[in-house]
């Protein structure tokens, strides 16, 4: 079934859950994510900075994982590697059994479109588009028809509690509302994996709590989530917490 033929689901659970078009044949038994000896180094000020140093871990399908650690420990770099917006200098990442670390740019772009949802600390909504249009953006890229993507965008905005704000532009929304729109956008193409980088970092405690609750609901509805955070509340909400230090995993605990 092509992306354009996909139809909006009436159920938020189906909307939020995994359902990628590019899912590989080997996905049945494979974990959602498998990182093996993953490393990333980059030059900075004439020196090689080893941001991630050979980490190995799995994320099971439907798992909710928080990655925590001090600033500069390599959390965001790890997240970028999992989301295929950065390339490892060593090791490999497989998402549902598919090695994504060797993909070329075109393959990686298409893979992200259908399999990965990103939520950023600063929301990064398109300021000139309405909330609904922002949610439609990945679907438009995937070739979903206008009617279908509008219906699904409305459904997702309803899911995150913003059905009444669909015509509002980001500047007319609060920080928490913008982040909820960003989450709806991340879910637009029914990704296998939702990756969030400090999603409560720009929000006050009350609004942050709303986002934490939304993440819990998403996970309960079947979405696999990996979140990088300094927020203890957010980390506590996760079922599993990976502690990083100096680019390495120092503790991996299941709550």
């Amino acid at each position: 079934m092509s992306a354009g033929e996909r139809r909006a689901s009436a159920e938020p659970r189906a909307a939020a859950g995994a359902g990628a078009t590019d899912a590989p044949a080997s996905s049945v038994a494979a974990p959602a994510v498998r990182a093996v000896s993953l490393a990333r180094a980059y030059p900075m000020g004439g020196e090689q900075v080893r941001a991630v140093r050979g980490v190995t871990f799995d994320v099971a399908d439907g798992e909710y994982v928080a990655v925590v650690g001090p600033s500069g420990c390599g959390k965001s770099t790890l997240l970028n590697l999992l989301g295929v917006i950065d390339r490892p200098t060593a090791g490999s990442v497989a998402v549902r059994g598919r090695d994504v670390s060797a993909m070329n740019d075109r393959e990686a772009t298409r893979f992200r479109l259908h399999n990965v949802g990103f939520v950023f600390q600063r929301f990064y909504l398109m300021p000139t588009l309405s909330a609904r249009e922002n949610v439609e953006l990945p679907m438009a890229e995937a070739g979903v028809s206008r009617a279908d993507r509008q219906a699904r965008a409305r459904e997702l905005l309803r899911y995150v509690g913003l059905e009444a704000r669909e015509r509002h532009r980001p500047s007319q929304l609060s920080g928490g509302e913008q982040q909820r729109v960003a989450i709806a956008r991340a879910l637009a193409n029914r990704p296998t994996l939702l990756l969030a980088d400090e999603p409560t970092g720009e929000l006050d405690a009350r609004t942050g709590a709303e986002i934490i609750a939304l993440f819990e609901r998403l996970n309960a509805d079947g979405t696999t989530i990996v979140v990088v955070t300094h927020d203890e509340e957010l980390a506590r909400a996760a079922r599993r917490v990976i502690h990083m230090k100096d680019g390495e995993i120092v503790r991996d605990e299941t709550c």
Partner: protein
Amino acid sequence: MRAALASAALQRHGTRTLLAVLGVAVSAALLLDMVMLASGMRESFRQFLLIQGFQLRVSPKGTLPFDSEATIEHAGAALATLRAHPDVVTVSPILGAQTHTLRGDTARTAFAVGVDPGVQGDYELLRGANASAPDRVVANEAYLTLTGRRIGDTLDVAVGFDPQFRSYTGRRALLLVGVGRFYYTASNQAVLAIPLETLQAMSGAARTDRVSLFMAKVRDGASVEAVRAWIEATIPKVTAISTETAVAQVEERLGYFRQLAFILGAISLLVGFLLVTTLVTVSVNERVGEIAVMRALGVSRAHVVQQIVLEGFAISLAGAALGLALGLGTARYLNAILSDFPGLPATFDFFLFQPAAAWRSLGLLVLSGILAGIYPSWRASSLPIATTLRGEAVA
């Protein structure tokens, strides 16, 4: 969605976009005017010569029409010879002379053409009647303004002045019967059209059976050049020049002028290109974070390129459309100024709108707008996503 994003990106800084569009419009207007000027003068000259369809001018040997007092002798015989040629459809004989319109102690000087009203190609009648009988005359508006006369007045017209006796010669009473627009004389020059025989009679023995010029129309499909050569070989002491030859001579003389117009046009094209490049580059630099996020969400490089090229295209298209109107308005204004130069015929245009040339040049401008978007779009699509997002987060 790409069009919506491109449109939104341009609307985000509306004033800046508007200024860029205006800049491109000025550039487009200049380009259009240069194209109109470069090809327009030549084409206008051709249309000017062919205004009544006469493709050949026959003048006294070694002269151009009306550039001297010289005349063609045995005009009657020459006219009969010309009319006998099977490829010659119409021949219009013309005698030029300076006249003085006398009233009381004043004398107003006007140029007169002696014509055969039945075949003349020098003027179009605006009102009144044609000078189709002896001693009738048609004048232009400049003449009426100069002399204060009107249709129905009898004019006291002389064709010569004897300084020894301080008296006018070749005087005759002519009835003003019509007002016309003369094609080949300056708009502010007073002109009369008098029947050829009347003007020859007024001019005395020296101009009996003489004309200044023959204009000839050649049958469709016949070789103008062959007729021209035949005229020069058959009728003594004349030079025949075809419209094409005259246009070629003018084009040769306008060569430097056309080069100048070409260079100015190329500069305006470059300015338009740089304007669009600058605007789109600045716009892209402001949106690197957004673009990196779009890429992270799975928007392909090709689509990022398309969106940004679309922005350049939209600016240049809007600029070209506005520039078309601006260029036409400017050309009209400049044409009016230049047409007021003394001695220039009113029917001669410096700026001539030729749709094919105009669309070509504006199309080139729009194409340059598209090309202008390529560099910034390539930069945008090549942004390292993770590094850019990290940089944005730090910023």
